[in-house]
């Protein structure tokens, strides 16, 4: 089923329950479950290079929502070294159960590959991870881009963990009234779908270098200063027109790390190693810019491997 937008004037008084417009509306809501596939993180132009025969974690990000465990994709732009086998692994981990799949490259030609993983549990939140390796430590594999999101393929029958429930042609027989249950389900499916497919709007990864040769150019989300150091800036995509919550996540490491971010006149900070999250109500609009600062409060060495901003709950 393909979404068929209704004409603006189609829903008028005295519409009957078996009318085509009403049936199409319910079918459209079922279609939305399969069609709505925003990115969770990325696209990010990454600077990853790995020369290791064992998996090296080059990117890690948070996956919220997706209680329905729809398939998830990770598309990468990458290459290996001719004559050797490079392997990229996309993992989805809920903390106790991990699902993963791989792609390989045996050439130094850049290619775009998509790895799809279907989570085997409904446990949320999860973490997405990208690992790289190559079967000769003297060689290298490179990854220049990453984007990850949802790849829903079907809408299962019954009430799903997200709260969505398929119509599947129900409530459309001749002579049936339009039921309150159908109206509730239509309203709530849209709401629950939007909540279950959390949408990323910005994010980045620190460069990753493991193996021989010079380090790649690219972002260095690292500092040994106790003063706030500007490590990245971003232009704000305009998504919602009103004030709403946004989810900020930063993965920090090292000695006493602290991140401060500013956007649209708002400022906040998180500190400590590991993923650190913050949810803020903001009214983002066209023309705004965001900034991310990093420091070690004690002046030690610290780094930020991931930053993510999503439309949050």
């Amino acid at each position, binding site marked *: 089923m*393909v*979404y068929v*937008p*209704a*004409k*603006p*004037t189609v*829903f008028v008084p005295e519409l009957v329950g078996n009318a085509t417009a*009403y049936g199409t*509306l319910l079918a*459209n809501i079922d279609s*939305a479950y399969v*069609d*709505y*596939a*925003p*990115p969770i993180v*990325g*696209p*990010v*132009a990454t*600077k990853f290079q790995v020369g290791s025969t064992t998996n090296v974690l080059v990117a890690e990000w948070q996956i919220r929502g997706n209680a329905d465990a729809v398939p998830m994709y990770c*598309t990468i*732009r990458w290459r290996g070294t001719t004559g050797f086998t490079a392997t990229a692994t996309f993992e989805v981990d809920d903390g106790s159960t991990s699902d993963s799949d791989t792609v390989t490259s045996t050439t130094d030609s*850049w290619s*775009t590959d998509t790895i799809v993983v279907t989570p085997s549990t409904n446990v949320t939140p999860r973490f997405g991870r990208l690992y790289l390796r190559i079967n000769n430590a003297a060689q290298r594999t490179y990854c220049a*881009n990453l*984007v990850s999101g949802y790849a829903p393929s079907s809408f299962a029958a019954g009430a799903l963990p997200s709260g969505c429930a398929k119509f599947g042609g129900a409530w459309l027989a001749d002579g049936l009234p339009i039921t309150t249950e159908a*109206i*509730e389900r239509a*309203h*709530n499916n*849209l*709401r629950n*779908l*939007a909540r279950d497919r*959390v*949408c*990323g*709007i*910005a*994010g*980045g990864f620190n460069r990753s270098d493991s193996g021989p040769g010079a380090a790649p150019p*690219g972002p260095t989300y690292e500092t040994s200063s106790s003063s706030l150091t500007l*490590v*990245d*800036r*971003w*232009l*704000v*995509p*305009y998504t*919602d*027109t*009103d004030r*709403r*919550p946004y989810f900020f996540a930063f993965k920090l490491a090292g000695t006493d790390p602290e991140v401060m971010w500013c956007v649209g006149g708002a400022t906040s900070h998180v500190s400590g190693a590991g993923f650190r999250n913050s949810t803020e109500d903001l009214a983002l609009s066209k023309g705004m*810019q965001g900034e991310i600062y990093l420091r070690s409060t004690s002046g030690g060495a610290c780094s930020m491997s991931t930053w993510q901003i999503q*439309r949050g*709950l």
Partner: protein
Amino acid sequence: MATRQPETGPILDQLAVVAFTDPEPATIRHLQRIDRRLHALYTAWGGGGFWVPCHMDNSETPDEMVVPIPIPSGVEYFEVRALVSQRDKTTPKAAKIVLQSGNTSDSVTITFAEFGGGDTLEGAIEVFADDYLQCRSGLAWSWGDDEVTITFDIGTGKLWGLLFQPVHLAQTV
């Protein structure tokens, strides 16, 4: 034939659960509201923009990069803006970055000249592409993808990132 505008809201993921208490008065307003929210998911609300950090230097080899771009439903064009910086303040030079869609071969150009902030993240400024970038030919109501090639064509400096903002147009329905 009729024309339908994109819908920007409401904020779908923040809506309260709807639970009617029978008897609920029958009103066409319910269907109108559901239809508008559905169209919002397929258009402006569901297809927001995204920021692509690049950290691309003109001296990198190769000086081009291919970025896989998701295309929201109902979208053919993106407005593109960039955060750029340029060195060599004493010798003014123009710089040009070209973006080309793999789907349509359409291209846009981002040009900028020397400015005083220096070739640093702090000194970077926002510049606009000279046109909308067409990344899909024709209307589709599902998410798609494109591969956009970014070439640092002329000049010096750094591309710190790109904002891809989908252009949601009124559609014939």
